[in-house]
């Protein structure tokens, strides 16, 4: 089953990229004409708590579903179409250490990916059962890495998806360091009924997604960014 058969996602992007004047006079010898040089994955809305249609159901919670899984799906498709490319292809490399290619402005022919996150990611978190998802990963190193958390994960959800359907992280409930003693009540900064927990988790997912994009060599360089507050109006 190819659920994307009727979705002209990559075609639309390729057509748009090919039509932009930025692409029409390319002198690059290494990039294909339709390749994306800079991909900005932006996701900016606040998932609302019940009775929003986001809540409940059998699929992932909407904030995570839209702001992470939507982009995950999108990137998968772009990669399949060859519209985004990595640089060295150094899969599974350690990105904790600064790499030579990242010490200068973009120089290679691969795609640079900018994932728009938020500082509120620091208030986000995942249920420990997520680590159980590693059990399905083919990489034995990943399995070993997950071994320590397996018992906890399986106790909650053997599929590693516990809480991804809003079982816990939904709404503006007491799921945040903002409720901790000595911490400014961050909810005072947010509009009423904002689902801070779900939003923060989705933004954390954006950060983690960026890390994996680069580590896997799917793009040349990937970073997450907090764009701070958006200034509305002129």
């Amino acid at each position, binding site marked *: 089953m190819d659920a994307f058969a009727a979705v002209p996602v990559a075609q639309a992007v390729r057509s748009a990229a090919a039509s932009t004047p930025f692409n029409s006079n390319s002198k690059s010898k290494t990039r294909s004409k339709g390749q994306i040089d800079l991909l900005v994955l932006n996701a900016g809305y606040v998932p609302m708590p019940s009775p929003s249609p986001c809540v409940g159901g059998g699929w992932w919670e909407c904030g995570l579903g839209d702001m992470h899984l939507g982009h995950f799906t999108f990137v998968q498709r772009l990669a399949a179409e060859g519209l985004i490319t990595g640089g060295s292809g150094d899969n599974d490399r350690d990105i904790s250490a600064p790499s030579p290619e990242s010490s200068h402005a973009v120089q290679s022919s691969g795609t640079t990916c900018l994932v728009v996150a938020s500082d509120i990611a620091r208030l986000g978190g995942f249920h420990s059962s997520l680590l159980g998802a*590693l059990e399905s990963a083919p990489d034995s190193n990943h399995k070993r890495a997950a071994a320590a958390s397996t018992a906890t994960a399986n106790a909650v959800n053997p599929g590693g998806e516990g809480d991804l359907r809003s079982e816990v992280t939904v709404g503006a409930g007491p799921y945040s360091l903002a409720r901790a003693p000595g911490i400014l009540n961050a909810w005072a900064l947010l509009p009423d009924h904002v689902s801070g927990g779900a939003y923060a988790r989705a933004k954390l997912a954006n950060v983690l997604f960026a890390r994996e994009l680069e580590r896997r060599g799917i793009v040349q360089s990937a970073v997450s*960014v907090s764009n701070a507050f958006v200034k509305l109006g002129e």
Partner: protein
Amino acid sequence: MIRTGGHARSILQRGCAQESCFQTRGISHYLRFFYNDPNFLFPISLIPKVHPGTVYTDIVNLDGVLGALQRAISPLLLRTPQASANVVLSSVYGPQGVKAYGDAKREANAAEIAYNAAKAVAVLARQRVTAASSPSNSNGEASEDVHAAAKEAAAQARAAYEAWQSLENSLPPAVRASKLSSAAVASAAAALGATSKANSARTTLMPAPATTAAVTAEAGDPWLHFANGRGQVLGPLALAIKSTSRTDQLARALWAASEFALRRELGVSSVA
């Protein structure tokens, strides 16, 4: 600065207005809360140069996403003087994403969910590409003022980066974790025993208030800091200081779960 076109700005503003973005409400509180340093600054224009996968912040430029795009375009333009750069903004905004997601969910059709999520992304991507093409001449080349603006922006970025690098190099490793912030940040790092991991801390730029460190230290677990019985919160310092294997483990787990979801619900295997 580089003109990005009124259309992109319009989309940005409309989207945020509809979705009750934080706007400027409480921004001073926000900055004090997270940084404990109202002068904290990091130029977003250095994105290609710095460590991947970490959150960076530009509190000076409040144009947010648009500013990020402008700055990210600059090095691309400089890299290719003939202004050949395919720039795509994919975006998921509430009006499209939530509606599509909600509609599909009500229909209990998992495939439709991903279909609509991807579709919402694609529509905005197309618009954004069109918008990004605006600073060009009739021949499809970036205009001279764009080149000049990009060059100026890059020069500023380079100067800022060199200044930042100079400052960093002047600091002992244990203090580098605090970057541009105050001694309170170094104390926060020490409270978590992060001093011994200065190398990993060195790659980050996000100081955090000492009050946060106190809370997370009490939790006892340096990674899943704050357990409240309803799940676990990855504390603020986890990304800021503990930017090592455990964060990557979480990233891999999320990736695996996402693949699992696509494969199970859609019958689509990961291609990347």
